[in-house]
């Protein structure tokens, strides 16, 4: 844990030393809520029926979708991106020869972008509260668990992408495809019940579907923990299966990289 915190701290200090950029990113996230607010108010009369199980406020519905998509993007891309940039700079070689086990190094390298996305997500949701969205804050601990499961499920895909980076020097279109597919089928801007039947059958494989539905019902629709237990269980199952596959793929890629010499240069 100390090693993860040390890596997180180092990356945090490096990233926030660009003060103007840090400030501008927070401001731009807050500013991005404004057009969403007006768009949501315009669309709300049409969308209200389809989102009724997940609250009646379409602006709140969309804001939670956007916040989740921030987390999803970083959870999927953080590991391959950190791996790629650290191999390129030579830092990965220095980290690999320390006494810290590799999985801890990987988590430590990915921790900052995920943490940053969580902060961005929190900023968006707090901005929405300022605009009048009613959120059940008592359910936040349960939502934290859901978010962690969402991160785990997508970190698994990140591990597979990182394995591709180690073997082929690029993860190709995997991350883009996963993020776009999740946004399309997971219900970021609309309820999954509103999409055609054959697409709905695909959405059952998307972790975001369960995470968003459970989060919205808890925060916006006064649902109880029992009401969302099915979604949370399914999300946990996808995370466990995904992490097992991801760990196997990454382990195999590491062994290949140690043989082929692709571990220390791209």
């Amino acid at each position, binding site marked *: 844990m100390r090693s993860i915190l040390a890596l997180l701290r180092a990356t945090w200090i*490096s990233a926030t030393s660009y003060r103007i950029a840090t400030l501008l990113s927070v401001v731009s996230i807050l500013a991005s809520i404004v057009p969403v607010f007006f768009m949501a108010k315009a669309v709300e009369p049409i969308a209200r029926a389809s989102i009724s199980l997940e609250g009646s406020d379409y602006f709140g519905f969309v804001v939670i979708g956007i916040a989740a998509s921030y987390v999803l993007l970083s959870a999927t891309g953080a590991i391959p991106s950190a791996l790629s940039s650290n191999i390129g700079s030579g830092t990965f070689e220095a980290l690999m020869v320390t006494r810290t086990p590799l999985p801890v190094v990987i988590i430590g390298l990915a921790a900052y972008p995920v943490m940053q996305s969580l902060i961005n997500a929190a900023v968006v949701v707090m901005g929405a509260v300022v605009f009048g969205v009613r959120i059940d804050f008592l359910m936040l601990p349960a939502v934290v668990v859901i978010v962690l499961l969402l991160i785990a499920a997508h970190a698994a895909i990140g591990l597979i992408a990182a394995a591709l980076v180690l073997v082929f020097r690029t993860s190709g279109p995997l991350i883009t495809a996963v993020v776009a597919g999740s946004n399309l089928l997971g219900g970021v801007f609309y309820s999954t019940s509103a999409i055609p039947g054959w697409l709905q059958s695909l959405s059952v494989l998307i972790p975001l579907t369960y995470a968003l539905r459970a989060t919205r019902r808890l925060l916006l629709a006064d649902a109880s923990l029992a009401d969302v237990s099915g979604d949370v269980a399914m999300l946990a199952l996808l995370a466990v299966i995904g992490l097992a596959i991801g760990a196997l793929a990454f382990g195999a890629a590491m062994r290949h990289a140690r043989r082929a*010499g692709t571990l220390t240069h791209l």
Partner: protein
Amino acid sequence: MVTVDGITKRFRRPRTWRESVRAPFAAPRVTAVDRVSFAVAEGEVFGLLGQNGAGKTTLFKMLTTLLHPDDGTATIAGHDVRDEGAAVRRLVAPVIANERSLYWRLSARENLRLFSSLQGLHGAAARTEEDRVLGVTGLTDSGAKMVRDYSTGMRQRLLIARALLARPRVLLLDEPTRSLDPISARDFRRFLRETIVEAEGCTVLLATHDADEVWDLCDRVGILERGRLLTVEATALLRHRSGGDRHRIWLRPDDVARVASTGLVLQPRGPSIEEGWATFECVIPGGATGAAAALTRIAAADVPVARFERAEPSLADLIERAVAATPQGDRDA
């Protein structure tokens, strides 16, 4: 301390599109390290001399567990680099000569804090160790400065400080003075000899293509060429054998004929720094006695000599001689 026995590493050679189409299942390979064997004793400074692409860096990566050998074994204090990676990493620290591997927007102390944590050091023990390595590398006063504001030489020292954090028993240095100016390089060599080897008691493996580094630092040296270890010799012996008979002499150009009459065959080596003197090289057998006799003959011929010294062999000379001394069959095997 370090034993390398028949270690070999081959890499897949990148192929052109045409080659891939003609033979889609072929997997041509290049041999980066070819059946290399040597042993390094505790506290020894062992040099690996070779041109770019000789296999020095690949060999180091295998010793640090970053690469797995295809054949052969290597052990550090009895621990196999392939099967006991964690144990090896507790003993070996490579000085990664890449400045970009530092966190440039962190101070030197913050960089060390990160790596001390990754090496399992925490709290007061970590602070003490950070202070120690900053002191050892002469960076105590600039520890709070951001790495981006460091000079290249300071970053080089910080890379070494980082490697020393875990008190390694074996330090691997890959061309450590590559980006240093001559004065910084000389200071660094002194620091390595006096502080790292004599005070810290590290065993050092030094990969270089700088002959000066070998003469100044190494107890023994191995010459690598195209992945093969051609020879391993004590540095003093290698120096004597490869450069012992060649001398440089600084004379007035008009005196060349008179020196030639003493039996010395002079070869011009370009103008001297000092005005009016020219530099020549000649072969004088017999070591110091032979050189003294030759100098006596020159003096007897009433020839003024500005300077006289034994010529140090260059890296190219050493490799050429090592290649020439290796039987053809051994080189091609």
